[in-house]
């Protein structure tokens, strides 16, 4: 059962365009993370959003956590070829008040930005 649905799976755009990646679930998460992974490397954490409705910005990247903490989005403004990579969302659930890095990942979005 895929608990985190990520869309689109593939995105091919021209440099300068804007894009949005969505991450949706029917379950509530205590926090949600976004990672970027390049070929031959492990995922690298971009951001963690914790509060429902929270918006975080990282240069041209804007991350939003849904009010109900079930969904999130990643928006990239004026995409550049260096943004090319696999983007992954991952949800964290706290069990009994404890928290550790047991992440539920979405399937990922492969982004290609053409010069």
């Amino acid at each position, binding site marked *: 059962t895929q608990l985190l649905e990520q869309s689109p799976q593939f995105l091919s755009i021209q440099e300068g365009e804007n894009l949005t990646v969505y991450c949706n679930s029917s379950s509530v998460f205590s*926090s949600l993370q976004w990672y970027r992974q390049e070929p*031959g490397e492990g995922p690298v*954490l971009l951001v*963690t959003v914790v509060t429902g409705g929270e918006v975080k910005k990282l240069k041209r990247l804007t991350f939003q956590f849904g009010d109900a903490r079930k969904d999130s989005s990643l928006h990239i403004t004026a995409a550049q070829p260096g943004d090319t990579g696999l983007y992954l969302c991952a949800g964290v659930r706290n069990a009994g008040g*404890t*928290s*550790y*890095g*047991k*992440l539920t990942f979405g399937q990922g979005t492969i982004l290609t930005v053409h010069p």
Partner: protein
Amino acid sequence: GAGVSQSPSNKVTEKGKDVELRCDPISGHTALYWYRQSLGQGLEFLIYFQGNSAPDKSGLPSDRFSAERTGGSVSTLTIQRTQQEDSAVYLCASSPNLSGSSGANVLTFGAGSRLTVL
């Protein structure tokens, strides 16, 4: 070292053979995780270590999979009698804090070990 180190980076083996994958976490990180990344399944949690103990091994797919951690540092993931469906990239991650603290979910991943079972 500065990051999470995994070896081997690539392993090709024949069906039925045993394989060992090694993870060297960031020095001082008490928590260590193994994940598996495959085309059909995405990234899946396998096991979590806090120190040398594994309080959550719920993601191990079968009893052919086992993992241990010694000295609160290096971890080994062992797959016995490998099958073709075991082919995947096995990723190790570590985090600096004890369970329950704010940093517990800040994972640093290694580059992974790509396993191909022929």
